[in-house]
């Protein structure tokens, strides 16, 4: 390698270093892009896919469309859904307290308990896909901070009633 080549290489090398400084220097003067979160709002929450929630009937939004068939429970890869209905009363057992059993139960067309355990959920949407009456959808609730994992057992019926009331 000749001396001139050597110095040419050194020159281009030094130039690239100066160009690099120029770029970071320019960035230094540009406005920042950080969203300082609790003080500023994040603007794309509407498309966020949170835990599943029930969809109410068109005529009565506080009652879910759900027919308590149990398809979503079976479809869930992580077993995070619980749907319970009253177990049909056997003959001779009338008057005893109502026992809840996993859906489907004979004679029950609405669920008595719908719980999603969000600490297990991986948000895959298989439950919503499996639902025959389109009663499940993703919520867009990103504020999911709890102190105990048990608190992630979300009562969807209560949530639906609350949403309908608002």
């Amino acid at each position: 390698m000749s001396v001139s080549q050597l110095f040419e290489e050194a020159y281009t090398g030094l130039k690239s270093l100066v160009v690099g400084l120029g770029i970071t220097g320019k960035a230094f003067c540009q406005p920042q892009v950080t969203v300082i979160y609790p003080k500023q709002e994040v603007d794309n929450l509407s498309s966020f896919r949170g835990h599943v929630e029930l969809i109410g009937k068109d005529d009565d939004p506080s009652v879910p469309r759900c027919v308590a068939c149990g398809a979503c429970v079976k479809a869930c890869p992580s077993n995070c859904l619980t749907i319970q209905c009253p177990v049909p009363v056997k003959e001779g057992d009338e008057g005893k307290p109502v026992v809840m059993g996993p859906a489907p139960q004979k004679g029950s067309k609405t669920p008595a308990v719908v719980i999603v355990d969000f600490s297990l959920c991986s948000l895959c949407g298989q439950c919503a896909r499996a639902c025959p009456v389109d009663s499940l959808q993703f919520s867009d609730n990103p504020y999911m901070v709890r102190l105990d994992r048990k608190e992630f057992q979300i009562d969807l019926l209560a949530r639906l009633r609350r949403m309908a009331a608002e």
Partner: protein
Amino acid sequence: MQAFDPKTLAQDPTSVRFEPGPTEDKLILSMGPQHPSTHGVLRILLELDGEYIVRAEPVLGYVHRMHEWMGQEKTYFQFMPNMGRVDYLHAMAWNWAYAGSVERLAGIEVPERAEYIRVAVTELNRISSHLLWWGAYLLDLGAFTPIMYAFDDREFLLDILQAVTGSRLTYSYFTFGGVYNDVPEDFPKRCLDFVKLLRSRLPMYRDLVTDNVILRGRCEGIGEMDVELARRYGATGPVLRGSGAAVDTRRAEPYSVYPRFDFPIPSYPQGDAMARYMVRMDELETSCSIIEQAVSTMPGGPIAAKAPKTLKPPKGEACYAVEGARGKILVHVRSDGGPKPYRVKLRAPGFSNLSVFAELARGTLLADAVSILGSLDLVIPEIDR
């Protein structure tokens, strides 16, 4: 300093097996599982002579999750969300490989619109993977700023993908026969805007990093491999293209609607870390051009074929190869006609790419080994599965 004593590591069978070399002044160094540049929890046992590497052996399995067993235990639909977790950086390609192999097995036709959406989101995801690699690789080489610029650009992309899929990282967007839900109205416009933005940023990337004399010194001539070595180890993707073979599964074994798009396959003959770097930088542009073509010619129609709620493919087997950001993803599914696969085999490109590392790292400096490791673009969850 105590001499290396294999007895003190009796609880660790891997280390015991990695005996000290023939001379005593070799240093056995356990790089990882917690090390800044092993990208997660990879462990590499190194035998060093000074700072020169005599022997390197990757130790895997720290994030092993037994996906293949889960594949056998879950139904076809239930295994789908696992695919986003295998390689969290290019989840769409894994989605596609599994969906594609089951579609082949069950003979499900995918509607045209779904194919175009698949292409668009997979290429977007590829760009996000390459951008993250770019930043992380420079972090390995000691430059802290580029990853922030890369993440700044990646943010726009993740917003687009969030609007489509609802999540920002571990997508499970594909279903058998199509995609989960339709893209929003403004999807093509946002894609084109993003492509424009990225193209305006690429010269900055080049000036700041690619042309930088220090980076060139760290990458050029490091970890050279040729096509023959890549073939014997099964290295694919940018690693293979960086060795001079212009091979891309999207072109070699065309799937979906890729044959309809016009895109170049970047390849560099040098085979060093710089060549792999350049291939990935060029692929950013390639993916941009595919996205442009896909969203501007996206037809209307249904987004998913009618698939039964419980899928029971006929007995048989099928594989599906997809070009992921790291190389050829191959999913092989065997069915016995039941609702669960009999066997699912996932071929992770990073697994084969990493297996070359021992060969490439021999005789290099420790700093070069870090550079080589970074240039292979590893995602450890994909390698460990």
